């Protein structure tokens, strides 16, 4: 068990628990200038390199996120080889420079830097305005001018506390302003209740209970004022823990679960109390009454206090652990420990997990420790391996689980390896242990090791990774332009690579201004093909926004969803293609979309509608849809279209339709003497029909129609009855006969060449209607009717005059017909 001893030797005992400091990255590239110049490339590299925590304002994102820094101009600094202009610097957690950009001069003093939960960099200026930058290139978000958060004349920022989604600011005149939507365009700051700080009082320190831990869902700000602590929220102010008599609090920190508060009192006591100040959980008297520079929770079991050169870890019982640092330190709280950033290294301080203690604890005889030992013997080909196995065979599953679990907590790859090998040794004897658990841990470790690599620099622990989720990790990787790794990880974990590829394609386009379209397209397509169903239109839209319209056009060709493709084609001015694609899609709504777009453009550009007509006339569906639409609201345009494309007959029908609308409108027809407008429209239509060869029938009919309207008008004038216009030729004849105007009827008959057959039907019907049976009989004797006597018989039957009908029935020539009629008379009577 000699190998285990060395492991546990590095641990420190606090109360009854072990803690360990793991050095993750050391030395950091920025501490040795020689390596940094080599690794960073291009412009700005001279400014990136050295980072001294004591002279910079620094922010570090949790979950192994990046580090941002700006030189603190309130401190006197000796410039070595650095330029005197300040720059905003961005490093990975492993100290690799990621980006830098010049800090805009003449801004108000920088108060603090912080990262939002989606890794935007936030810079709060002393006047209470906020600058936001997008990673990885530090481009300002929305605008380069700061967004004010404080009401005017508040005196600027006295103190501020950031959390993932917001910031709470204490102003110089002791008011509290909070925003909870720090990422949106308008952060919407609002002022909390007045904390009621008296003129002669001072706010000593502040802390925030984040909104997710507060019932109301809005943050609660704790202020230490004089010898009391007040909780401020939107509705009011509450004085806390007066009964506890803590005295003035100099420094506070809220625990990662929002339930506990570590408070450093003026007399050097460190107190841990619930955030409702109901009792004191424990207190520890420090040697110094001087408040610490930094205070942070390490997990939920201990509190770190940092004074210059001394870091003290205090736990609920026993002596604290003291670490000494000869350089400045920054504490970065994580959910399961604290990262300690110094000028030269990145360390992780956390409680030694139970499984690790079981295996490596000094003198541990736990099954896990024995299993670990057994593997060691096995590798040395020692028979002791089997002895160990026999000792623990009953509790093998726990032992395996402990080895796997412990492997997860290790940063050292070779130790992960030995622990997993120990687990596999146990697995060989234990079929009931779920193998998936082992594979899962291997997968997680492969991902973690990949992102912990100093080149990537995301020192995540298993716990952090599970909390962050793989999807967010991939999101962070692509935002850091680590697309290849992100793709590999998403493939490895069976996640949809669409996000990665899409982001890559867009970044590629942005970064490839110099590459010709065709070459770039090939490169893009190679990767886009990897992902089925990816939206080419989205990539194309990005290309268009980056000023690469031709590339956009080529990309959008590959989009399979017409409803996405077509609007984009229109936005890049590919109207013809858009029109063709919309027709192919069969979705008439898309065709209309294109049609209106083109129509609109034409009316803006004032180019002749003829172009439009030309475009649509070549495409039947587009043409027909335009016609259907224009029929409802654009008659004139439609007429122009018909005339200009030689569809004279359609123009003719359109005129006929207009003439009918005139007829329906009493003001237009009955009022005017000649029904002039209506007749004129019909005549126009007649001429249009006549111009085509194929529409002779329509032409003649229109001509007759116009003639009929004239005749009817004359009849109305001569009879002084407005009952003719609008009726048919046959009805006109009938009306004349009914009115006893035989001459007029005959005139209409001859003018419109009404066949004799019809004449007999009309006249007999009309005479029967008025019951003029004598005239009917005279009519029947005039000559032999061309269609026989059927009209006479039917006219009589329809009028219910059986006796009259019987006069003509014998004259029917067809015997079948005769009997049929007789039957009909009988049936009708029966009914």
């Amino acid at each position, binding site marked *: 068990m000699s190998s285990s001893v060395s492991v546990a030797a590095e641990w420190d005992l606090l109360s009854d628990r072990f803690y360990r400091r793991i050095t993750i990255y050391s030395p950091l590239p920025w501490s040795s200038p020689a390596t940094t110049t080599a690794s960073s490339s291009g412009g700005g590299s001279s400014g990136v390199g050295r980072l001294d925590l004591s002279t910079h304002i620094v922010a570090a994102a949790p979950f192994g996120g990046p580090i941002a820094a700006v030189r603190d101009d309130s401190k006197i600094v000796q410039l070595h080889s650095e330029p005197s202009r300040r720059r905003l610097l961005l490093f990975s957690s492993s100290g690799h420079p990621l980006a830098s950009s010049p800090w805009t001069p003449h801004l108000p003093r920088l108060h603090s830097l912080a990262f939002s939960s989606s890794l935007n960099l936030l810079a709060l200026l002393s006047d209470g305005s906020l600058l936001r930058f997008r990673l990885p290139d530090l481009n300002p978000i929305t605008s380069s001018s700061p967004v004010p958060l404080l009401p005017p004349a508040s005196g600027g920022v006295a103190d501020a506390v950031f959390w993932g989604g917001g910031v709470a600011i204490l102003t110089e005149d002791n008011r509290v302003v909070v925003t909870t939507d720090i990422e949106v365009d308008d952060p919407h700051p609002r002022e909390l209740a007045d904390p009621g700080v008296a003129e002669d009082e001072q706010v000593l320190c502040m802390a925030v209970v984040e909104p997710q831990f507060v019932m109301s869902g809005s943050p609660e700000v704790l202020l230490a004022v004089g010898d009391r602590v007040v909780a401020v929220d939107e509705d009011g102010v509450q004085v806390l823990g007066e009964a506890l008599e803590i005295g003035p609090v100099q420094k506070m920190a809220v625990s990662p679960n929002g339930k506990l508060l570590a408070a450093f009192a003026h007399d050097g006591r460190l107190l841990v109390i619930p955030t409702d100040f109901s009792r004191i959980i424990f207190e520890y008297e420090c040697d110094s009454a001087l408040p610490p520079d930094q205070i942070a929770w390490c997990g939920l079991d201990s509190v770190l206090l940092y004074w210059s050169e001394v870091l003290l870890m205090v736990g609920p019982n026993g002596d604290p652990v003291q670490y000494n640092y000869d350089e400045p330190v920054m504490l970065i709280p994580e959910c399961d420990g604290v990262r300690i950033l110094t000028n030269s290294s990145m360390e992780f301080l956390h409680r030694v997990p139970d499984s690790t203690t079981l295996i490596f604890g000094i003198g541990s005889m736990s099954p896990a420790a024995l299993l670990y030992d057994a593997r060691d013997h096995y590798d040395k080909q020692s028979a002791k391996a089997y002895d160990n196995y026999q000792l623990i065979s009953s509790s093998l599953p726990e032992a395996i689980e402990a080895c796997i679990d412990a492997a997860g907590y290790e940063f050292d790859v070779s130790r992960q390896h030995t622990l997993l090998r120990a687990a596999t040794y146990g697995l060989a004897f234990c079929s009931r242990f779920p193998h998936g658990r082992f594979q899962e841990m291997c997968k997680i470790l492969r991902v973690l090791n990949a992102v912990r690599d100093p080149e990537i620099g995301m020192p995540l622990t298993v716990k952090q990774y599970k909390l962050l989720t793989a999807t967010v990790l991939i999101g962070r990787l692509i935002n850091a332009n680590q697309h290849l790794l992100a793709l590999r990880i998403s493939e490895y974990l069976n996640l949809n690579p669409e996000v990665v590829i899409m982001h890559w394609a867009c970044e590629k386009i942005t970064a490839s201004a110099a590459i010709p379209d065709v070459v770039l397209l090939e490169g893009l397509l190679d990767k886009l093909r990897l992902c089925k169903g990816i939206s080419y239109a989205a990539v194309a839209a990005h290309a268009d926004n980056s000023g690469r319209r031709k590339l956009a056009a080529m990309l959008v060709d590959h989009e*399979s969803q017409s409803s996405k493709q077509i609007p984009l084609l229109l936005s890049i001015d590919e109207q013809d293609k858009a029109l063709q694609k919309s027709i192919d899609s069969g979705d008439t709504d898309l065709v209309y979309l294109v049609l209106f777009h083109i129509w609109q453009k034409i009316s803006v550009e004032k180019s002749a509608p003829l172009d439009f007509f030309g475009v649509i006339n070549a495409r039947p569906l587009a043409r027909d849809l335009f016609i259907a639409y224009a029929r409802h609201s654009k008659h004139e345009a439609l007429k122009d279209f018909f005339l200009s494309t030689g569809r004279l007959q359609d123009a003719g029908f359109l005129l006929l*339709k207009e003439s009918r609308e005139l007829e329906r409108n009493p003001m237009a027809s009955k009022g005017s003497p000649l029904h002039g407008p209506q007749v004129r429209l019909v005549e126009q239509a007649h001429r249009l029909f006549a111009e085509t060869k194929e529409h002779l029938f329509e032409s003649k*009919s229109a001509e007759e129609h116009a003639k009929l309207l004239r005749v009817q008008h004359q009849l109305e004038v001569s009879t002084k009855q407005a009952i003719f216009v609008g009726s048919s030729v046959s009805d006109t004849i009938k009306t004349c006969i009914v009115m006893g105007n035989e001459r007029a009827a005959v005139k209409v008959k001859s003018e419109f060449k009404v066949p004799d057959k019809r004449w007999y039907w009309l006249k007999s*019907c009309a005479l029967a209607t008025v019951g003029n049976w004598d005239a009917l009989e005279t009519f029947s004797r005039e000559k032999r009717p061309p269609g026989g006597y059927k009209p006479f018989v039917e006219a009589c039957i329809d009028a219910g005059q059986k006796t009259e009908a019987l006069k003509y029935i014998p004259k029917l020539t067809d015997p079948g017909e005769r009997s049929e009629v007789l039957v009909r008379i009988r049936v009708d009577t029966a009914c």
Partner: protein
Amino acid sequence: MAQIPNLDNAALNLTALREQSQKELLSIIKSIRGKKCLVIDPKLAGTLSLILQTSALKEYGTELRILSADPLQTECPKVVYLVRSQLNFMKFVANQIKNDESKGLQREYHLYFVPRRIVACEKILEEEKVHQKLTIGEYPLYLVPLDEDVLSLELDYSLQECLIEGDTSSVWHVAKAIHKLEFAFGVIPNIRAKGVASTKAAELLNHMQLEDPVSMDNMGIPEIDTVILLDREVDMVTPMCSQLTYEGLLDEMLEIHNGSVEVDASIMGAQQDGKKVKVPLNSSDKLYKEIRDLNLHVVVQVVRQKATSIQQDYAEVKSTNTQSVSELKDFVKRLHSLPEIARHVNLAQHLQSFAAKPAFHARVEIEQIILEAQTYETCYEYIEEIIQKQEPIETVLRLLVLFSLTNGGLPKKNFDYLRREILHSYGFEHMPLLYNLEKAGLVKRQESRTNWPVISRALQLIVDIKDPEKY
């Protein structure tokens, strides 16, 4: 008498489909708080009556109105238009809003398109300058269950749009509706199509399946095995012929709308005259299910037989006292079907009064002659005569179309003559109608010999009318 058909016996879970539509509609209604006036287009109002009871809407503070060209009469501060996406409705909506404005009425307007928003409609609203005043949404109602084995797209004008206007929106609509159905019942593995439009619809459906795949992960075997798409054009002959089955005659004489007919109360044997009653017609009615597709003569016999058998039972019950309780129970059970029998006796009797007329027989007879396509002159003269007699133009056109179809068109001289006679008899305003019929190929000039007699014989399309039992 609920008009909403019972779908429990359907092969597919159509009830779920209908409930989905109900839910979507109610959530629209609920999303608009307070008192509101729901304005529905006339056709859609009928369709919705197949989905839910209109009284259900009233529970949510909704007044119902039918969309028309007239100004809207309501006191409600909120107006919700629910209209099919048709261009002509947009003017109505715009006019009503403008009318409110001219009266100084301030209202909140919502417009829900059925089944989806259409650029062309919104364009008209923009041109009328009311688009800004409307909150626009969609009510994706594509298919409505009419009966346990019938889903309807309710596209009344699709044939006209496709054949005459060249507007193939309905084809896309068909594909979309089937695709939507696939999300409920699984991807349909076999698609057969006959005709230009159907082929296009199948093609579009295929494309939709690629664009927006239906996930089959949590579905078993697809519930629909095959979809067969047919163009109406494949058979234009049938709709031109007179109907002879019970359901067909009901539709022809009384017009079935949304699964019911509206008739005078007196026909149904009620006392109050002049009042209309709605009679639902669907397979929930067991007797109707049995007789709907039978020839009217047979229907009369079946119904009579049922009535007499009950009558006999009744006589037996009355005369003897020897029945057991279970026998009586059976009898009472059969008595329950009496209202159904009465209903169909009344309807069948009403239809008989039409069908017994010589005119009806003459009409069926001439149709038969036209279909046999042997005696051109007889048919031609018959049609000429009914035009000159000015019989209803629908009758004339149906026969003329039938004649043209079976004859492969009419010789130019006859064609022009009959068309002229029609215009003279019924008015020149029918010119576009004739032109459209020609454009659709329904009434046309003869260009080649007809293949109708060959087809009808080879495929045995004509059933002998004199044997009504056969069909």
